[in-house]
């Protein structure tokens, strides 16, 4: 029907998906405040739930239609977050306490083994199982960073949680890239390629990291207005990273680590930098929630719990075994081990990629991996928050 007056909108008006996303952001932020105030839970617990609800109401096309700019936003959020996480890694500590490094390797290997074994049991071929195991090593940096920041926690459990998360994320990214290389048969028997690939990742990643670190420390970003410069620098770095075909995760972690350890001078990550990323983090968790498909929870829920259980147990064992030599009490070891369990968001992305490559996995693996990620997305922050509370390091 032709509108009677040309400047009036159609009836019913054509609501763009952007409106829905904006509504979801506001809803998520409000729900986050509510859940924190009334239930004492971390704000980010609410974000994926709201995302799930919005996706259920508005349908799948939300993310698909705005994939591009959403992805950029999420990349920035993640990049700033990882930059800060990297800047929390004190390499001197690892030198003084070798057992902490051993703990990190132990818990990562154990998690890898557990996820690999369960995937094999589910009938996944060796290479994708390696890939899954590699992803399973990583603790979700976003969840850890946000919950630690929100509970204002300080102490052995929270500091170790940050450093172990940074380290296992680095292991995971490198292993994933290697496994992908094998998977796509890029190396095809060429050992030089197989060896130079990780060297390129680490070397070039370190170089990009160094560049960003130099820019940040050189520009002396002091107040809130400098946040826009940081934002610009991070965007430039992301561009550079993409041009060099490097993983964002790795480069940003390296940048943080270089910034912190590059010189002896004291360096504290400015609080307002974190708040730039903090707002974007809502989007990160919201979009993760939107990708949760309820039907997956029904088909793969049980096996997902097995997968999560095995992985969490492996991480816990790895930490607990070395708790005393590494200098934490049994109780702290227990809480640290449990707090490492939140899985990384990339699980979903990787699982989706694998599903496209191997359609036969659509039935077996994908629902399990997807629902495992979904469960951890929802439960992870609560576990971390409780562990920090019980460790007595929360100071809100």
């Amino acid at each position, binding site marked *: 029907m032709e509108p009677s007056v040309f400047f009036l909108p159609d009836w019913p008006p054509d609501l763009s998906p952007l409106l829905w996303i904006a509504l979801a952001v506001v809803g998520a932020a409000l729900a986050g405040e509510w859940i924190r105030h009334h239930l004492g839970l971390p704000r980010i617990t609410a974000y994926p739930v709201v995302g799930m609800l919005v996706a259920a109401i508005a349908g799948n096309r939300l993310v698909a239609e705005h994939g591009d700019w959403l992805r950029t936003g999420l990349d920035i959020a993640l990049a700033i977050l990882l930059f800060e996480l990297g800047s*929390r890694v*004190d390499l001197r*500590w690892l030198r*003084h*306490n070798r057992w*902490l490094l051993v703990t990190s390797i132990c818990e990562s290997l154990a998690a890898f083994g557990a996820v690999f074994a369960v995937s094999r049991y589910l009938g996944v071929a060796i290479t994708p199982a390696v890939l899954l195991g590699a992803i399973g090593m990583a603790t979700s940096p976003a969840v850890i960073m946000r919950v630690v920041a929100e509970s204002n926690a*300080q*102490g*052995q459990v929270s*500091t*170790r949680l940050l450093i172990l998360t940074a380290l296992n994320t680095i292991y995971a990214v490198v292993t994933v890239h290697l496994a992908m290389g094998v998977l796509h048969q890029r190396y095809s028997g060429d050992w030089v390629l197989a060896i130079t690939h990780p060297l390129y990742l680490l070397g070039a990643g370190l170089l990009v990291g160094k560049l960003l670190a130099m820019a940040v420390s050189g520009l002396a970003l002091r107040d809130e207005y400098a946040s826009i410069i940081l934002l610009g620098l991070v965007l430039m770095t992301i561009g550079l990273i993409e041009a060099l075909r490097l993983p964002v995760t790795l480069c940003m972690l390296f940048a943080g680590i270089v910034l912190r350890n590059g010189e*002896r*001078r*004291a*360096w*504290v990550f400015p609080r307002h930098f974190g708040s730039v990323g903090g707002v974007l983090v809502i989007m990160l968790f919201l979009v993760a929630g939107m990708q949760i498909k309820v039907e997956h929870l029904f088909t793969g829920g049980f096996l997902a719990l097995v997968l999560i259980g095995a992985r969490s147990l492996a991480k816990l064992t790895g930490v607990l075994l070395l708790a005393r030599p*590494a*200098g*934490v*009490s049994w109780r702290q070891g227990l809480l640290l081990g449990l707090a490492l369990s939140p899985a990384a968001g990339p699980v979903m992305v990787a699982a989706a990629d694998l599903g496209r490559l191997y359609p036969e996995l659509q039935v077996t693996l994908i629902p399990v991996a997807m629902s495992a990620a979904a469960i951890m997305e929802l439960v992870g922050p609560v576990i971390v928050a409780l562990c920090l509370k019980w460790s007595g390091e929360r*100071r809100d």
Partner: protein
Amino acid sequence: MIDETENELPEFSQSAPLTLGVELELQIIGSQDYNLIGSAPDLLREMTGRKHPGDVKPEITDSMIELSTDICQDYQDALTQLRSIRNELVHQADRLGIMLSGGGTHPFQHWGQQAIFDAPRFHHLSQLYGYLAKQFTIFGQHVHIGCACPDQALWLLHAFSRYIPHLITLSAASPFVQGIDTGFQSARLNSVFAFPLSGRAPFALSWDDFSTYYRKMIATGVVKSMKDFYWDIRPKPEFGTIELRVMDTPLTVERAAQIAAYAQALASYLLKEKPFEPQEDDYLVYTYNRFQACRFGYDGRLVVPGTAEQRVIRDDILRTMATIEMHAYDLGSTEALNLLRTEVLQGRNGASEVRAAQASEGSLEEVVRQGSERWAGRLS
């Protein structure tokens, strides 16, 4: 320990005259933000079973820890013990990814963020004093000096009062409080003065008189034991010592040992030469002198008790050092005295070093980092 009132003073123990004991309260600092961190329980847990002389104990907030030596014969003994405990503490702190530091205050901590160490006595103090207890997150050096008998202890205590400005100036290391340069050399003592039972001990030269005073105070219900007196110098009957409590924790254990040696030589001079008899009237200028030392350090002016003579604190210290030189020699602390004298001549103490670091670095975080390196003996 809390509700039990010690109605009688404990028996004054015998101790060899002029033996030393040193206690240092330390800052525990997080390596993420260089602020105080409540890691005393972690550090104490990791220290249990480690071999070192002396003792390591909790303090009122859990971002503080106190180390103490065993009884030391002389300067070298104290220095060796202090270094040995320091090394073990630093080693454990390194394992925990935390740092330790000397200095009378943390330059930018906010007392509101401190947590009371979980022990009945500390909770009691926190209840009684409210925010004062948390504001008591300050770090001092205590030096015990052995006395043959209680009357000697009281005599020495009051004779020492006129040298309190020296000890304050030599140890002063707390110019910054809550991020602000206070203009003081020892701002820490201003926090101590807020306590109702701080200040000087009552003028009693015999143990009987002192016991009478103590019983009267107990009867008022104001105090429950000697621990409730926060005097600048207080007798410690259990150890058979007097305890000098005005010093800031210096930035290094070496400086702490030198200051202990200075106090020991001074005690030897006072006890053996009896250059004057302590008077109640000595205290007329006491708080003025003490303030001058806290505020201006070496450049402060003190009034010599019993006269109206004004002296610059620097000159008074140098003059005293010359007087007690032979006593220091006999006690084996000539080296300590010489090192201290150099500092006095150059007008240097912890406060001036902290200020110099802030002037050249422009960042209190970096000042704290350098402070912890200096404490660990990794920075010359």
